[in-house]
């Protein structure tokens, strides 16, 4: 009797295997590069601060820039302190009318209660953390915590409706109850419509993970980025269809920014090595300006400090050029995010004053390359 049941289950399993293998489309391991807006030949050096915010109390940290259909939003998390049970995600809308920028009023964009009710399955969300653009309008990837601190965090795919989040689902990135994965940097796109999410696992030894998400937002494949120390918070920059570099923060405190490279569209990554830039355990932002030039915002102070610099990195030979020192001293600038503004200039945001404020700047490439006065 038992054998008949098992043989029946074997037949069912074979049927399921045939079905799932047949529907599984092969991966297209080619990055889809975002169009790099052309820089006008006679671009005037411009630098302007669009938003300089101090939280009325507590902390405001980890800003990110999200482009929706026709608007740009700046999102960050704010509460009494990070990882506390009163942290929600807030945003301001950043609009451009001709040459002028305007920033709208602050509003709660993603609350713990709202997200908990939208989660599938419905569940408690105790606190919120880093949020990144998901590569599609009306969608973000958010760090959420239901128990414990950041080491027990999960990454949730959150989709918004007109009244707030209407669907949220944890990404299946770890066998430890989906725990200990966080996001910091924006994802990258593949030619077949899949998306590549740079994420990192913070428990244990600490490592980075490049996760491939399908059109439904489900994880279909992961690749580890490992190296000396604790290489986390990968910032991935595709250079062409097959090549990419990943800058990694060393949580172990080696004092060096780490770098890993892929030559097969993100399918595999080299063992991370020092990138040749001092970096005391802080994340970086990067933006491709030309096929062999990356703009990087990083803390490059070898003594620790709180400096935020703009640098140029040439991936072909690994040469760095210091461009500008943006912040220093007691500003405590951290967690930078860079993106093109769509019209040949650049937006940069980061948190300030030890995670209690935010700044958003708009500047031209010519201003950045002019260097410090």
């Amino acid at each position, binding site marked *: 009797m*038992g*054998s008949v*049941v*098992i*043989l029946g*289950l*074997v037949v*069912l*399993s*074979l049927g*399921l*295997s045939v*079905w*799932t*293998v047949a*529907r*599984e489309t092969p991966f297209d391991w080619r990055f889809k590069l975002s169009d790099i807006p052309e820089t006008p030949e006679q671009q005037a050096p411009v630098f302007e601060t669009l938003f300089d915010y101090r939280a009325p109390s507590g902390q405001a940290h980890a800003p990110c820039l999200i482009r929706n259909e026709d608007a740009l939003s700046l999102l960050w998390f704010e509460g009494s302190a990070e990882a506390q049970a009163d942290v929600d995600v807030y945003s301001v809308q950043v609009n451009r009318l001709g040459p002028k920028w305007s920033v709208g009023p602050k509003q709660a964009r993603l609350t713990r209660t709202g997200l*908990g*009710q939208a989660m*599938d*399955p*419905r*569940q*408690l*969300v*105790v606190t919120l953390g880093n949020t990144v653009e998901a590569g599609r309008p009306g969608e973000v990837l958010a760090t959420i915590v*239901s*128990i414990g601190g950041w080491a027990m965090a999960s990454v949730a795919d959150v989709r918004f409706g007109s009244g707030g989040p209407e669907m949220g*689902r*944890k990404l*299946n990135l*770890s*066998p*430890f*109850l*989906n725990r200990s994965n966080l996001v910091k940097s924006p994802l990258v796109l593949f030619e077949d419509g899949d998306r590549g999410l740079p994420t990192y*696992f913070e*428990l*244990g*030894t*600490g*490592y980075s993970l490049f996760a491939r998400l399908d059109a*439904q937002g*489900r*994880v*279909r*494949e*992961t*690749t*580890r980025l*490992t190296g000396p120390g604790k290489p986390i918070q990968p910032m991935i920059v595709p250079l062409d269809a097959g090549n990419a570099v990943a800058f990694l923060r060393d949580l172990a405190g080696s004092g060096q920014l780490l770098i890993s490279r892929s030559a097969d569209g993100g399918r595999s990554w080299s063992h991370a090595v020092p990138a040749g830039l001092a970096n005391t355990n802080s994340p970086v932002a990067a933006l491709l300006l030309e096929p062999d030039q990356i703009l990087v915002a990083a803390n490059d102070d070898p003594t620790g400090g709180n400096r935020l610099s703009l640098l140029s990195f040439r991936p072909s030979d690994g040469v760095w050029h210091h461009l500008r020192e943006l912040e220093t001293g007691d500003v405590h600038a951290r967690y930078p995010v860079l993106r093109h503004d769509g019209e040949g200039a650049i937006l940069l945001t980061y948190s300030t004053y030890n995670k209690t404020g935010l700044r958003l700047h708009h500047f031209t490439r010519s201003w950045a390359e002019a260097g410090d006065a």
Partner: protein
Amino acid sequence: MTQVGASLALGICASWLGFVVAGFVLPSFSAALIGGAFGVTLAWPLRQRLLSTGAVAIFAPFGVMLPALALRHLAVSLGVDVPGFSSLELFAFLMAYILFLMAAFGLLPVDFYRLGYSAKIVGLMTLALCLYALASGNWFLALVAVGGQAVWAVGWSSSNWFDTVLHVTLVPAAFITLLMRLL
């Protein structure tokens, strides 16, 4: 369907918990009734309350193995014959699962978990478990393996097959079972 699956699994696991607690003072049948009532209450009328949403937040994805083991324990306690696992099998599982988790924590330079995303490998792993079940005459194991594959295939749970047939609470469960058999 993820919500339905999670509610069902939560209801079954809560029923088992209620059954175990009530079983200290009541006979099995009465304990099963009380446990079932507790599980249904948690999974449906109280599904939006902190106890349920907190349990889902902490333990989901439940997968198939955990509720299946809970149901098996209930059934065996009520006199139904359902095959189980030998001490040697439990010990081998415990060692293998601990190595699997160590690899997931980056303590071993391999990543077994990523194999659970691939349809071909999931098919082969399920078939291997079924063949072992056939050799050992354990239809319960085959049922969980194929049930996990089915849930994974239709997308009602995790996109990784391992989450449907494993659960970290199996580590203490297997350890306690082995310890009780030794004593």
